[in-house]
């Protein structure tokens, strides 16, 4: 582990803070727009979990690949997606990342290794395992990373993926965002096992961190990624975090008590990073400037997305299949 990993310089922490603040600003705006009927379909917000996305992504390189899940806005933005094209996709515009075919649950940008959010719980794990196999066989020097919630710990595909990745010593970082909720049910009613012990059963080294502490998440990620790049095989980081909003927007959360929601405010990763910045002596004006930059970026993106065009039905069938191309390896007979 790099000696500086457990600490961050003021400038570095300010960058991490700005990354979290952008995600928060994006999702708060999405919540308002969803409430106003501007966003179709379902959106699942990661408010309160930003430190996981930003802290992990800080250890990844552009050609590292990332598989995400239904609560994936933060992962996508932290991996470097453009905010305007992100909003365009979530609003179902043809200029969006997926031409309006995917929406919130399928945002992807292959150019930065973002292999997609995913509407199926646990489905990103095997995809990331396969991408790790591709990194290994193609000797790219890259690694794969996958984010999943504690709810995915009950999925069979997760156990199969842990086993396969460990057997083949693949370059993959598993990141469990343990927010204690599987949709509308508490973890206590979902899983008989301790989350971190599951991966250890497959001999995957596991680190447990406070997922609302951006510096701790980044430190764990740097350490794990270094070990993975060195050929050490898969690692798991379990990040204990908090889901502030409901399972999806519009979820009244009648299953949660008020005490828990109050406690959430004290754990907020962005407030905590802000306090840390002040302790480090970063001027309030610099923090305010980061806040303002995030707001401006989102204002611009929303304006661009509102001006985007709806995809026309004449283009609907494009990309169900790839364009026909001449045979690459085999001669074709009629």
């Amino acid at each position, binding site marked *: 582990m790099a000696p500086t990993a457990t600490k961050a310089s003021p400038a570095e922490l300010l960058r991490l803070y700005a990354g979290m603040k952008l995600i928060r600003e994006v999702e708060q705006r999405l919540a308002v727009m969803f409430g106003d009927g501007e966003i179709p379909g379902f959106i699942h917000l990661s408010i309160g979990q930003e430190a996981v996305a930003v802290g992990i992504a800080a250890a990844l390189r552009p050609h590292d690949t990332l598989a995400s899940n239904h609560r994936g806005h933060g992962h996508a933005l932290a991996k470097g997606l453009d905010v305007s094209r992100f909003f365009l996709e979530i609003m179902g515009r043809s200029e969006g990342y997926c031409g309006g075919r995917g929406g919130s649950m399928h945002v992807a940008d*292959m150019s930065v290794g973002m*292999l997609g959010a995913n509407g*199926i719980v646990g489905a990103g794990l095997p*995809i990331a395992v396969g991408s790790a196999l591709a990194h290994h066989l193609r000797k790219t020097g890259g690694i794969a990373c996958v984010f999943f919630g504690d709810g995915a710990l009950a999925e069979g595909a997760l156990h199969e993926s842990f086993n*396969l990745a460990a057997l083949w010593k693949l370059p993959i970082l598993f990141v469990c965002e343990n927010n204690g909720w599987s949709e509308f049910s508490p973890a206590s009613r979902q899983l008989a096992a301790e989350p971190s012990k599951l991966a250890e059963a497959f001999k995957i080294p596991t680190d447990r961190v406070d997922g609302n502490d951006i510096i701790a998440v980044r430190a764990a990620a740097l350490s794990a990624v270094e070990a993975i790049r060195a050929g050490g095989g898969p690692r798991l980081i379990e990040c204990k975090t908090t889901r502030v909003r409901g399972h999806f927007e519009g979820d009244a959360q009648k299953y949660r008590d008020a005490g828990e929601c109050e406690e959430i405010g004290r754990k907020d990763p962005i407030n905590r990073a802000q306090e840390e910045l002040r302790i480090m002596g970063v001027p309030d004006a610099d923090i305010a400037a980061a806040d303002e930059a995030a707001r401006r970026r989102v204002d611009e993106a929303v304006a661009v997305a509102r001006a985007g065009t709806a995809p026309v039905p004449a283009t609907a069938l494009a990309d169900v299949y790839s364009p026909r191309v001449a045979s690459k*390896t085999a001669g074709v007979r009629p």
Partner: protein
Amino acid sequence: MSEVRFGQAINRALADAMEQDSSVVLLGEDVGEAGGPFGVTRGLLKRFGAERVRDTPISEAAIVGAAVGAAMTGLRPVVEVMFMDFVTLAMDALVNQAAKARFMFGGQVSVPMVVRMPHGGGINAGPQHSQCLEAWLAHVPGLKVVCPSNVEDAYALVRAAIDDDDPVIVVENKALYATKGELPEPMSAVPIGRARTARVGNDVTIVTYGAMVPVGLAAAAVLENEGIDAEVLDLRSLQPWDETAVLESLSRTHRLVVCHEAVEAFGIGAEIVARLADTGFDELDGPLVRVGAPFMPPPFAKSLEDWYRPDAGRVIAAVKRAIA
């Protein structure tokens, strides 16, 4: 020309593709050391090494899911699912991931993967090792499905499947693995979506695929003695299927029977006759007739399985209804 078995032709296709393209890798349960349950991948581990010929744990969801991620990021994986019945365990990876990635990501990425899977009965393997589930997969936009009936097409369709930029399911009938045929030199791929006329005839068109092609030909030989000249079309590809070729044949024979080993209800035959009832209506001089297994799980006992699987007698009876 060389005479090889059906399984050997697939082995040759895999080997030739791996030889020409280092991104082609094999994944599956016992495909390496054991050479596959039907011997299809025998010798490939030794020739290409354990990095590219990978024995996997019994984890269909992870194997097929990993193939999706590998295909999205630069490999061309070929997965063997030991029996088609086991594809049930990998349906998320196929239906929600492989089939949709290109579309739902707006054309950013293709998923060039192949999943080979043996279907069909005749070896008393019982209800969970004998099913023909190809209609499920042909029903999913984004997937392609092929099903060879002979040695030459087995080679050609496996090459075409590996070459294809989209996920392709290669359905291999277990009863065909030991059949022999000539493999022409040079060997080549055949375009996916093109049917083959297995027998030219004028009185009725028998549309079929896979192991039912020899059954259709046997029925045609019997019918010939009765003065009925049947044309037999081998679809080779089920998704997409060659509607043009079927319509062309129907426009000459004006009678049509579709045969498959899969259950008749909601099957490949249902789609074909429904299309032709529309696009071929003016050509029809008789009912469109289907032959398939009865609507029940494949039975184990030999006496029951023999009765369950469609045979030439059932095809002949169907033809007589079609031309009545």
